[in-house]
């Protein structure tokens, strides 16, 4: 026993010295997808490609949270490290990461982005350099309970005002019928990027509404924003629970999927989940474009989505670009749409009969995507996080009742002006 005790430290030291060895190097390293199904899809595609071409590719998993993923990438890129060749980036990052990324036009054929949504390609292009290959897209949708609308004989709302009235009426009726937990509307109200997406939709759906326009002018302090935020503020505590102020996508889905909400704003991923076998609202859910802001407004969905980019510090940039073009090919995009509901960025795929059969809402999705609004990430470049933060902070303050709409908009305008200084 005594001997054992004295041997223990030596054994431990030996273990420590011997254990940590470098892993074998691959030809390429790709970071794609953080999450279960997505990662699986990516791994399969990468494996198929490496079999085809005989290259050795390592797939690296990254954190789910976009902020964590971004800082993880930045750490590696600003060290000019060749540890990762291909990264999957959010469509609000190209402006921030551009200088570390390869111009894909240099290595890919000229028609590489033919047939893609123009908005997506524009967003991926920084100073004339295509730094990202758009891969799949996301947009805000209005989920509604078909059965409840039918029960109370209400149409699918076309404007936010209609949505509010319908939600209030149905919520009251449902509560009178005994469901004390019934709510009219849930959305993403936590002070985070998701609220920026939601609030951008509210103000962009109003006539002449917007945050920062394509020329980089700050246009947020407007009648449109005033109308939109005043209406949104009226929801909290009335048709939406007060807790919505700390909801992300999942908390909202929890309320909706357990049958306690009439409307929900969320991303396409929710479709498969609310329609799953054990969902309380299976076959009772419909999807519509988000409402317009008043009779003269437009439908506006914030576009999300991800693209693939090649690091400038990659030792095998040409090879990496080839893998990128394989992964973003029409055939791959279709496969990913069918298996994982990742919405393609190639327009023609929305007319694909096979896809339409599997996902009936694809018809609508095409027009939703065409009406989509981009967050002002390209124009504000590396200041975008501040812009978004200032925006969701003020909106959150309004929703929480901490400050009046006018004051918040005025403060937001001067804050954005300060962030912008002379130019973005």
């Amino acid at each position, binding site marked *: 026993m005594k001997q054992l005790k004295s041997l223990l*430290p030596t054994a*431990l*030291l030996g*273990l*420590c010295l011997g*254990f*940590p*060895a*470098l*892993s074998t190097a691959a030809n390429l*390293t790709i970071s794609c997808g*953080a*999450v*279960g*199904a*997505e990662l699986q899809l990516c791994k399969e595609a990468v494996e198929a490609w490496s079999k085809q071409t005989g290259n050795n590719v*390592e797939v*690296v*998993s*990254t*954190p*789910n*949270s976009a902020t*964590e993923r971004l800082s*993880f990438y930045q*750490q*590696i890129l*600003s*060290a000019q*490290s060749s*540890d*990762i060749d291909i990264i999957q980036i959010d469509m609000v990052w190209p402006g921030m990461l551009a200088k570390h990324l390869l111009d894909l036009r240099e290595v890919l054929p000229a028609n590489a982005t033919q047939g893609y949504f123009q908005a997506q390609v524009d967003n991926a292009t920084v100073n004339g350099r295509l730094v990202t290959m758009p891969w799949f897209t996301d947009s805000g949708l209005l989920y509604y309970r078909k059965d409840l609308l039918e029960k109370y004989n209400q149409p699918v709302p076309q404007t936010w005002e209609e949505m509010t009235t319908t939600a209030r009426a149905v919520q009251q009726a449902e509560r009178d019928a005994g469901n004390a937990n019934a709510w009219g509307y849930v959305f993403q109200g936590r002070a985070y990027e998701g609220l920026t997406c939601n609030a951008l939709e509210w103000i962009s759906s109003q006539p002449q509404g917007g945050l920062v326009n394509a020329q980089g002018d700050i246009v947020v302090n407007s009648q449109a924003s005033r109308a939109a935020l005043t209406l949104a503020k009226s929801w909290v505590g009335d048709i939406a629970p007060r807790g919505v102020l700390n909801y*992300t*996508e*999942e908390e909202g*889905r*929890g*309320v909706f*999927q*357990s049958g306690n909400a009439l409307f929900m704003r*969320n*991303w396409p*991923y*929710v479709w*498969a*989940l609310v329609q*799953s*076998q*054990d*969902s*309380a609202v299976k076959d009772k859910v419909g999807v519509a474009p988000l409402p317009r802001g008043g009779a003269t407004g437009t439908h506006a969905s914030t576009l999300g989505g991800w693209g693939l980019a090649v690091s400038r510090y990659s030792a095998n940039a040409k090879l990496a670009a080839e893998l990128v073009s394989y992964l973003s090919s029409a055939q791959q995009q279709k496969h990913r749409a069918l298996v*994982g*509901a990742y919405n393609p960025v190639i327009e023609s795929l929305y007319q694909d009969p096979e896809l339409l059969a599997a996902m009936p809402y694809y018809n609508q999705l095409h027009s939703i995507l065409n009406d989509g609004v981009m967050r002002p990430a390209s124009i504000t470049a590396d200041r975008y996080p501040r812009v978004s933060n200032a925006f969701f902070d003020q909106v959150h303050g309004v929703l929480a009742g901490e400050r009046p709409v006018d004051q918040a908009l005025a403060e937001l305008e001067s804050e954005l002006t300060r962030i912008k200084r002379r130019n973005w």
Partner: protein
Amino acid sequence: MSPRLLKKTLLRLGFWCLIGILLVYAVFPFYYAIVTSLKPSSALFQVSYWIDNPDFSNYAAVLNQASFLRAIGNSLVVALCVVTLALFLSLTAAYALGRVKFRGRGPVLMMVLGVSMFPQVAVLSGLFEVIRALGLYNTSWALILSYTIFTLPFTVWVLTTFMGQLPHELEEAAIMDGASPWVTLTRVLLPLLWPALVTTGLLAFIAAWNEFLFALTFTLTDSQRTVPVAIALISGGSPHELPWGLLMAASVLVTVPLVILVLIFQRRIVSGLTAGALKG
């Protein structure tokens, strides 16, 4: 029943009530995590207090991932090495700081404490550069080395205090016999320090086992990742979905070894900390 007996009974009753409240308060969240981890995903959004129809699919899913088991292994190695390294370094340092009076002792102690006054996120990128410069990126060594930044100040301070309180006659006798400081430390003082070593070792182990930010930044591939990162990387079928059941199952799996460890060493911790805390 006499009034006195009644009073005594009531007192006992009240006492056990307090103990009950205390236990519920301390253990309930952990219990609830277990309950959640045993529910199928569809039942998540309904409140339930008891485990009925335990569903082990979450545990199966977590344990089926080779990378999770690998992560547990990595965490074990990293935490054990951190403990070994931190204890060795702070033991020698504590001898100097706790048993010898010399100029600069106070500043050294304050400096060591000062290292742990910066927010972790601030030292992250600098440490990243150090790790890369040493060529340790994506190895367990990167973590072992960087974890000393928050374990060492703690272990040094605690061991210094313990060391300072050992009866000095022992050491004087050793010095009279002509023993070198190294022999004095390892043969005379070390045997008396076991409780303190166990305590600080356990605390350092928990700190290293639970660390997330460094582990995320300094490792890249699944083969090098540790448990907290593996938990953070567990996610649902799509970017916004949070798989609560899986998360809770993984958390329970990771916490149980720690709880067992704490149970085993409980007596040691109490007696270990006592010696240091009090004589001040």
